[in-house]
């Protein structure tokens, strides 16, 4: 097994004076799909935000390639893709402009690639329509288009299946499996019934965690 990309050691987080989890340790290795499970309010989103570097209210250690994450934050951000509850899409901009803005700080991508990614999520023909005129599901698809052009080895996906139709869900599942097979490391939270062979699990709420 290859070396872990991201390791959490004795992670502990308290929110509103409520202990969400403690002594949580796990590693995320390339080529695996891991699902974070737990009932509503068990801290799935919080865990993902902590791992992504959005939430600093935790104790323990997070190691990136074996070193504390803070040592090379830019490398960590460069190699991590986080999609949250909020899609990160500006309603006033078109899908094309949104995608361009999201990629702009990461790496140079030309418009053809972006258009292909949008077409790949079923948004062909909507490239230049302001996102506020699109449905909630279509807006999420704009955000998901990033998965099709992502070169980041680590994906942190929070409720990616929300507002997506059956065909879309199928397509995302296939994409995630394919990505894991190619050596990507993926961590997802979802209430959708995701069945993937060899899928790791992190269970929150009960306080225990098994790989």
């Amino acid at each position, binding site marked *: 097994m290859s070396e872990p*990309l991201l390791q959490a050691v004795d992670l502990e987080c308290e929110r509103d004076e409520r202990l969400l989890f403690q002594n949580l340790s796990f590693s995320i290795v390339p080529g695996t799909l891991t699902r974070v499970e737990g009932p509503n309010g068990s801290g799935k989103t919080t865990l993902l935000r902590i791992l992504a*570097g959005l939430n600093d209210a935790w104790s323990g250690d997070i190691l990136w*390639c*074996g070193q504390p994450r803070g040592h*090379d934050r830019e490398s960590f951000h460069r190699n991590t893709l986080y999609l949250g509850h909020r899609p990160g899409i*500006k309603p006033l*901009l078109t899908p094309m402009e949104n995608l361009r803005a999201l990629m*702009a700080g*990461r790496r140079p991508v030309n418009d053809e690639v972006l258009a292909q990614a949008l077409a790949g999520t079923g948004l062909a023909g909507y490239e230049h329509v302001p996102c506020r005129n699109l449905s909630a599901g279509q807006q999420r698809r704009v955000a998901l288009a990033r998965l099709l052009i992502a070169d980041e080895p680590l994906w942190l996906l929070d409720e990616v299946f929300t507002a997506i139709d059956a065909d879309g869900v199928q397509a995302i599942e296939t994409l995630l499996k394919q990505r894991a097979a190619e050596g990507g490391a993926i961590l997802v939270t979802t209430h959708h019934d995701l069945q993937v062979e060899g899928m790791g699990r992190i269970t929150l709420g009960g306080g225990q965690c098994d790989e």
Partner: protein
Amino acid sequence: MNSSAHPLIKPVEQGVGPLSAMVAVFARDVRVAFRQRQDLLNPLLFFVMVVTLFPLGVSPEIGFLKQSGAGILWVAALLSVLLSLDHLFRHDFDDGTLEQLVLQPQPLFLLILAKTLAHWMLTGLPLVVLTPVLGVMVHLDGNSVAILCLTLLIGTPVLSLIGSIGAALTLGLRSAGVLLSLLIIPLYIPVLIFGTGTVAAAAEGAPVAGYLALMGAFLVLALTLAPFASAAALRISMSNS
């Protein structure tokens, strides 16, 4: 980094430079603002209304207006910037683009500096452009109007920069408006005093170079320190959301 152990890791150097990332953030903010023009007009309208209502409410006498005109314009500009501050991060926060901004492999303070500069260009700069018209309306002479414009040109970016700290700090809160004003107004006072002081000194024929140098110092101080403070405040607000 020990990239040899991890062939998957993409080196940061192959990415995008901080400058082009800043340009992208700036361009996006300007584009969004121009698709929602009424938000752009609000601070301007407020500015014009306060300045026009003052002579009606207090006294239309030329002597009074000559004496207090610069102060009225400065206070109106300050409040107008203050009103627009809540928008600086709020929309981005609500739709999730701010999260993605924080997660960019770029120094956060530079991206925030780009956002703040866009904010100034869209709110502060139009106020400066309008000032000559309103200055004439309150009977300021040509020289005073020129000095007033200059002080506002140096002063309004300071207001935006200092304001960005408050806007970032109060981001996660429900009723951020009042707290934002309470936090920021004390920091605005020195800028206001020297801004109006410069015009008063010019009207008396005293040299203004010293005043302008001090305002320039405010600007340099705000430019170099405020983005760091805002970035830190933003991370705190992000953690609590």
